C-alpha cells in the first residue's frame, strides 16, 4: 500500500466519523427532544468536528499529491465550497439548538446534511472529469 492509499483510507474514515456524528445529532434532535442528551450531543459534535477536519485535510493532501488531480479542478473546488456550506450551517445549527430555537436548528442541520450528500455525489461522479 502506498502513502496515498493510507491517506485515502483516513479520508474515508473521517467521512464515516462525520456522517455518524451528523446522523447521531439527527436522532438526538428528532427522537429525544427535550431529553438531557448533553454528553451524547458533545460526543456526536466531536465526531462531526474531527470528521470535518479530517476530510478536509486528507482530501486536500490527495488533491495535491495524486496525479491527475489539482486543487482547482471543478469537482474538487465544488467539494471545498460544499464543505464550507456544510460546516457553516452545522455551526449555526449548534448555536440555534443551544439557544433553544429547535426549528431553526433542525432547518440548518438539514442544510448541512444536504451539503454532505452533495459532497458524496461529487466525490463519486467527479463532474467535469
Amino acid at each position, binding site marked *: *500500500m502506498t502513502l496515498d*492509499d493510507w491517506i*485515502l*483510507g483516513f479520508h*474515508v*474514515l473521517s*467521512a*464515516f466519523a462525520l*456522517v*455518524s*456524528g*451528523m*446522523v*447521531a445529532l*439527527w*436522532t*438526538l434532535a*428528532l*427522537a*429525544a427532544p*427535550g*431529553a*438531557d*442528551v448533553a*454528553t*451524547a450531543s458533545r*460526543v*456526536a459534535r466531536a*465526531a462531526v468536528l474531527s470528521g470535518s477536519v479530517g476530510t478536509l485535510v486528507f482530501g486536500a493532501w490527495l488533491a495535491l499529491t495524486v496525479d491527475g488531480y489539482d486543487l482547482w479542478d471543478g469537482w474538487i473546488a465544488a467539494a471545498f465550497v460544499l464543505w464550507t456550506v456544510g460546516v457553516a450551517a452545522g455551526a449555526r445549527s449548534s448555536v440555534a439548538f443551544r439557544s433553544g430555537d429547535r426549528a431553526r436548528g433542525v432547518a440548518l442541520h438539514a442544510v448541512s446534511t444536504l451539503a454532505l450528500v452533495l459532497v*458524496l*455525489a461529487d466525490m*463519486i*461522479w467527479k463532474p467535469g472529469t
Partner: protein
Amino acid sequence: MRYEWLLFGHLVGAFLWVAGAVAAALLRVAALRRQRPSEVAVLLRAVRPAVPLLGLGFVLAVGFGLWLADDLERELDSTWLLATYALLAWSLVVGAAAGRQDRETRELAEHLAEEGDAPSRALSRRLRDPVNLALNASLLVATAAIVALMVWQPE
C-alpha cells in the same frame, strides 16, 4: 455510469449502517448516566428509529456491495471479504441478542416510570450489565473493523 451508481448505493448503505450503530451507542451511553426511569425510557425509545436505519443501511451496503464486486469481477472469496462476511454475521446475531436485552431494559424503565419514577437498582443493574455492554461494544468494534477492511482491503 453504472459503477458510480453502484458505489453510491453501497456507500449510502454503509454510512447509514455505521451512523445508525453510532447513534444507538451514544443513546445507550446517555441512558447509563440517567437516574430516573422516565429519562432512561426516553433515551432508549430514541434508539428505535436508529434500528430501521441500521437495517436499511445493512441491506443497501451488502446488496450494492455484492453487485459492485460482481460488476468489477472481484473474487467474492478473497480474504478481506471472507473476514467481512464473518463480521457481518457476528453483527446480525449479536445485534439481535443485545437488541432484545435493551428492549427488555426499556420496558422495565417504562414500567418503573409509571410506578412512581423513582431511581431503581434493578434498572441500574440492567443498564450496567457487563455482558450486555460487552456485546454492544463488540458491535461497534465489528463495525469499525468492517469499515477498515472496506477501506484498505488487505490481501
